[in-house]
């Protein structure tokens, strides 16, 4: 199929970017979206034009490195997938496709379609862990039974890949789905209890410091999340946050 790509090009964080138009012919429907961009880049190199920079790595929907706002949607038109899992059969011959980076104040652009999501790492460092040393001499794993339902819910929250689609989609650029996924995972498990209060206070605090907005329950994040992380997690985080604020000694 033949397509017209409108792609955001920006040399660096401080320079001004713009949408540039690239016609592309011979795209096959079995190509993934990123393979289509590889294909474009090969042609650009042949023409002596610098290839488009975008983040990607595992190309199987789990590393969370790929991003892209495609035709106004994080990770494109399909649900519960990342951009690398989007295939060109979702588009048709003659389509014009708009490709932009994830946009948020806390995600500055590095180059072209690549953004800096290190704010997410800093939120995790504020409390996204259980303080246990790695000696291996903890108690036997089966000495901590966890009801299956809780374990399953904790797992569902823990599947967050940290891609940032939730932030890019949210009109407030809120990172609450991201932060709440980790907070919920530990909140649902007995191992997470001793530090639960501090964790929620510190992680939410860091989220605010990074310049992410607040949640207004629009729910767009849940729709665009490639892993289907539930809004329920935000509710759980808010409840935990309220409890912690009222009862913490700090």
């Amino acid at each position, binding site marked *: 199929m033949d397509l017209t790509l409108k792609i955001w090009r920006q040399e660096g964080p401080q320079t001004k970017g713009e949408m540039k138009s690239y016609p592309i012919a011979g795209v096959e429907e079995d190509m993934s979206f990123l393979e289509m961009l*590889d294909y474009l880049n090969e042609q650009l190199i042949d023409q002596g034009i610098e290839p488009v920079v975008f983040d990607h790595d595992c190309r*199987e929907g789990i590393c969370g490195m790929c991003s892209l706002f495609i035709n106004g949607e994080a990770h494109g038109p399909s649900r519960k997938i990342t951009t690398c899992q989007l295939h060109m059969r979702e588009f048709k011959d003659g389509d014009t496709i708009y490709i932009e980076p994830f946009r948020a104040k806390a995600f500055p652009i590095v180059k072209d379609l690549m953004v*800096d999501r290190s704010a997410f*790492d800093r939120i995790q460092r504020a409390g996204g862990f259980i303080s246990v040393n790695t000696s291996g001499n903890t108690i036997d794993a089966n000495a901590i039974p966890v009801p299956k339902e809780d374990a399953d819910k904790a797992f569902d929250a823990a599947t967050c890949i940290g891609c940032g689609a939730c932030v890019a989609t949210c009109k407030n650029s809120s990172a609450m789905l991201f932060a709440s996924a980790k907070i919920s995972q530990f909140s649902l498990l007995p191992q997470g209890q001793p530090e639960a209060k501090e964790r929620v206070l510190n992680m939410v605090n860091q989220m605010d410091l990074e310049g992410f907005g607040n949640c207004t329950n629009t729910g767009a994040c849940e729709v665009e999340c490639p892993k289907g992380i539930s809004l329920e997690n935000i509710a759980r985080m808010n409840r935990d946050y309220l409890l912690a604020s009222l009862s913490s000694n700090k």
Partner: protein
Amino acid sequence: MALDSKIPAGVLADKWTKHKGEIPLVSPANKRLIDVIVVGTGLAGSSAAASLAEMGYNVKAFCFQDSPRRAHSIAAQGGINAAKNYQNDGDSVYRLFYDTIKGGDYRSREANVHRLAEVSRNIIDQCVAQGVPFARDYGGLLDNRSFGGVQVSRTFYAKGQTGQQLLLGAYSALNRQIAKGRVKMYARHEMQELVVVDGKARGIIAKNLVTGEFERHSAHAVLLCTGGYGNVFFLSTNAMGSNVTAAWKAHRKGAYMANPCFTQIHPTCIPVSGENQSKLTLMSESLRNDGRIWVPAQKEDAEGIRSGTLHPNDIAEEHRDYYLERRYPAFGNLVPRDVASRAAKERCDAGYGVNKTGEAVYLDFAAAIMRYGAEEAHVKGVKNASDADIKALGEKVVEAKYGNLFQMYEKITASNPYKEPMMIYPAVHYTMGGLWVDYNLMTTIPGCFALGEANFSDHGANRLGASALMQGLADGYFVAPYTVGEFLSKDIRTGTISTDSKEFEEAEKLVRERTDKFINNNGTKSVDYFHKRLGKIMWNEVGMARNEKGLKQAISDIKALREEFYANVRVLGSANGMNPELDKAGRVADLMELGELMAKDALERNESCGGHFREEYQSEEGEALRDDEKFTFVSAWEFTGVPAEANLHKEELTFENVELKTRSYK
């Protein structure tokens, strides 16, 4: 240099405990004076960095991704083995040890493998304490499943995302240390050169991939946790960025490469669909618990399917060839990966393959769906359930077990695996070979260690499913943090290593020259153009089946390709600032040298073992023929300037606890 594997003396089961007790300790006050560099933040790297920092060393960790959480360990699907015997099916440390040795086709070190089996149990305890949400049964206890090559259920899992959950666990431990200031994290940084001072690894030259700047980082020891080199085949299940550069730079500086030809071709991947494909996607081995693998028994049927006139569901049961069940009745669909891969290739080469390209076989869940459905109907007390009801119930069970994998498959192929069998074909997945290390995981360069997939030590010629995660975490959490003590205990008075030395100077100069050469090359072909050609040579001649003629051809073809690459590669943009094409060029340059060494290694190993199948050495039934008399050794290659002219050093493998037998899964 004679290879000293430093295997401790004594009874197998006591070696590790005894050795651990004898490794010199570094006092807490002295640990603060010692710097350690960890390159790579997958399971091995994250866990090592976290553990070393927790012990008190100053750690610098590097990863080329934008966050340590994205290392490719994240993509491991099926599970992690541990000899917990929670299922009461007769598992033990010895059995896990034995299965791993046998699965590796008797080409790994007994002492290393036993240590791995011993610490496997601690991994599960550790991960659960960290909040890793493993799958649980209705009693709230941990659940297990089976993997290929074993007859017990010892695999712990978190749906089809076990690697993700374990890596996020290690990442959380790493984050805890970063937050304390014990680890300094350098994301979007790639190691470009190892710096060796007075014969010891004392630092690295790293490139800041965002600014293009080269940075000098010194340390008392360098740990390479940089994964495998499957991307030498271009198409593999590795991430796009996975590369051999860090390990190869160490190799060029004196670290031996061990068994580089031992490559794991995973039997269950989504088949290649077209020329523009950038990677292959794995379908977890866990699917072989319930999926039955078959091709049509009659060639006409296979042809009909390939031309699109027949549908797999039209082929009657008696016209299907469940070739694994037929050839290997004892293990059936759960034979080890190398065996399953070769069997698929054999059927496809014989003309029974099923997709358009003829290079695919079926993985069918219909029987499992009906079996689970009937069970569910019984449990729920549904009387006189129709086939459709049973099928619907069964599909729910299968969805709970493998939902994310089925969804992934459907997204890529646009075919629904609940309704028609999956199509799969073998693809490059894992490399058992890697940097040679002694029992302390130290390479032949003092102070340079290799952990996880980057080393060669535990899997012999074939890795069993769910053992890569086990090894990565074992090395990082429980082995290296102790064994580095032997080397570092001598460094308590050394003081900070200066980065102003001539060794750093020279290493940086080398890196700059390499970079400038690419930028100023003014060639006409892209990096990928060469990488794809390299991949084709590797897959055709150094892939699932190898022979002398092909391997010799590969060596000369790769040489020629390398020359062409340096003469004609085109890298646009500048060396200042972000330039992913430039980074890729450096990686592919190293893969090209490695490819040549792999072919050389495969050529010299005149036997078939594990993932290394030489067509000249097979039985009449097409099974691999090992030659224990001549080849019970590790091939450790010393770089001499040209990969194919590397010097071979042999580490003889002695088996004191296991009898060498022909592997049989029949």
